[in-house]
């Protein structure tokens, strides 16, 4: 929140197909791919709020 330190992120869509695939995995109806995604990337988490 500190104006001195905060960063803005500009979100871009360069590859619509890749973006669509990612959204389907994360927010689509199929559960399995999402589970697999979480399993595969569990260690990539950076900002975990515990």
């Amino acid at each position, binding site marked *: 929140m500190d*104006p001195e330190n*905060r*960063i*803005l*992120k*500009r*979100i*871009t*869509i*360069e*590859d619509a197909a*890749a*973006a669509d*695939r*990612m*959204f389907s995995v*994360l927010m689509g109806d199929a*559960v399995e791919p*999402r*589970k697999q*995604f*979480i399993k595969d*990337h*569990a260690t*990539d*988490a*950076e*900002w*975990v*709020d*515990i």
Partner: protein
Amino acid sequence: MSTDLPENSDIDAARIETARIEDEMEQSYIDYAMSVIAGRALPDVRDGLKPVHRRILYAMEEASVSAGSAHRKSSSIVGETMGDFHPHGDSAIYDTLARMAQDFSMRYPLVDGQGNFGSVDGDPPAAMRYTEARMAPIAEELLADIDKDTVDFSANYDDRLEEPDVLPAAFPNLLVNGSSGIAVGMSTNIPPHNLGEVIDATVHLINNPEATVEELMEHVKGPDFPTGANIVGRSGVHSAYKTGRGRVRVRAEFEVNEEDGRIVITELPFQENKARLVERIAEDVNDGKLEGIRDLRDESDRDGIRVVIDLKRDAMADVVKNQLLESHLESTFGVINLALVDGAPQVLDLRETLQHYVDHRRDVVRRRSQYELDEAEDRAHILEGRLTALNNADDVVETIQDADDRDAAKAALREQFDFSADQVNHIVSMQLGSLTSMEAQAIKDEYEEVQNRIDRLTEILENESELLGVIEAELLEIKAEYDDERRTSFIEDTDTVAHEDLIPEEDIVVAMSEDDYIKRMPLSTFSAQNRGGKGIIGTDLKEDDAVSSVFVANTHDYLLCFTTHGQIYKLRGFQIPEMSRTARGKSAVNILDLDDGEELTAVVNTDDIAVEDGDADRYLTMVTRNGYIKRTAVGAFQNIHRSGIRAIRLEDDDELVDVEVTDGDRTLVMTTADGMSIRFDESDVRAMGRSARGVCGIDLQAGDTVAGVAAVDTDRHNWLLTVTKNGYGKRSDIGEYRVQSRNGKGLIDIKTGERNGSVCAMETVGPGDHLVVMSRSGQIMRTPVEDISTVGRNTMGVIVMDLDDADRVACLDVIPREMVTDQSEADVDIDTDPETAPADD
């Protein structure tokens, strides 16, 4: 990349990063998912707590709201928790606090609440400004020794304080109190257990590190719910402990009192909402889905749950009980034994769950012993110094007297006696009074005691089996203090006696109206009268409603119900609500989901055709209003789902009119509204699939429509019986209808005209059969078919049912002679002049 920021923006363009949306989503999602999984929704395998529980308990500990202190306003505890450790919503914290105090949610409540903390009826707890809470004694066991460096601490959310990563947990809380939570992509659901059983299993595992799940299950028999009730069967429990997943059937505790005609429910399945359960049962009674219940009362009070179900006088308690079991008194607890192990979610079997707990306790006891050892050694060191000082009291006093000041005294003493700084500090602070021999002895005693403690702690730290012995002894202490009786019992899975076995086989008359009200009445309600009577009231109707169909069946029959739209549904006779003759019936929507304008047009009784086995020699022969006929093997109708399946493809403006069961060798007679009929061999209509349209059966004259079809079985049928809409009818020898080929114009069957009206239906009948006729206004009449005169083909016939002016025959069905002879009251004097016979109603 250009920046399109407003000119006066205070945002430094240099600090704008770009990110592709899919990368940003991936990173943010995984951060979110892992936060929920590791930091919110799942319990730690070691203390069985989610962060919010742990933080509430730790905040209470820090605020000294212990079991021994006075109750504290809940809002104050919530405030402490939120401000110091849990920067989330206050209501979420209070809900968690309240749940920990509910004796119907927690097998061993961790919070001792004062005030309204909610109820099994789903009433919410009072607002947090009204209720008070403090730790329950057993919660203190979770926190015991937390100040002895037993667990790791991390900085709280604003780096101001420290909070424990896990509690020391002197008992296996994960299994004892259970847990449930929905994370991202996974969830957990762990039932509560009996404390004594879980501790016994843990002790067993400590002494037998190779113990199998089966051995442990000799101690942990299964979940033990705070609400008691029963667990049905063992397989679900076994699979839950063996694999971490299983479905446990939980059944309410109730008593069937046949004498008083009531069922009394005293314990409900875990997490069942009593008020909603009572509501649901009442709804089903009102909808006719549950029969035989007269009254339903919730008599629960402070002594416990008591829901009383009064049965109707003639109801069979076992039938009602089984219906209740099927729909209301059982629930399934789907066990998913998922917990965090080293911060990562893992599905665990019983052995792993307990092993992780034992490992945790090993850490805790070791760290505590080390801490105590360090303390004891510090103390021993001081005592050693004092003992040396006592033994050399004169020298010490002299040295001090010779010194200029305290610091010089300390330095001189250290030089003289090799004291440490700590020791010398204590010595110069000693009171002269402690030089008495009594005090000297006390110090000696204490030194000895500390030495013993050091020996013991060293032993524990150096000898693994000593350490485990301590863990075991402490667990057994907890058990001695807090163990209680198991509340949930086990009952064997004697597979609920199939519903139907308890329903008496009974012949029934089913009536249905155009507005889809349906009911059944015992066939015996209707005794035979002579033809020509008015019949009796067979049903009540809403304004503008009219009877659409009537049929005869048995409560145990499988009924294939065909509709005008060509759909087929399957139901059991007993599924239709039984009601009195003068009642309206219940909406059929729950058993037959018909569209607007869709009516039942034919019901085929399948007690003698094996639809399930796909009997090859049986066919369903269907006719449509526009003259098509189709024959389909019953095997095509093996899978009829609740919402029905298609039986025939209909052209626009066509309707399914009638259906018969045939065997391939019959002759079929199609009849029309205008009184034409055609008889042809069944083999003339080749068998087709379910979705076929069929072939032309009769060449209809302009404006005419098909009224029905009859299948002739010459072994049992002698006559064709035709009834017209105005209530007239006749019986003719089958021989009078010669066999032609299909799709001809046919022969005249009955003269229609103004008196008779158009043909309603034609049936094949034989000696002893009865006829049930129902009018649109709800009059119903039963008469022996032989009461209707046999006349030739192409005649007018006689009056069958005396209808009011505007009334018309809606539908009819034959009561086969076997059903007639089943009943004693079937004897009627058929010689009485029908025209003068009094109407019954």
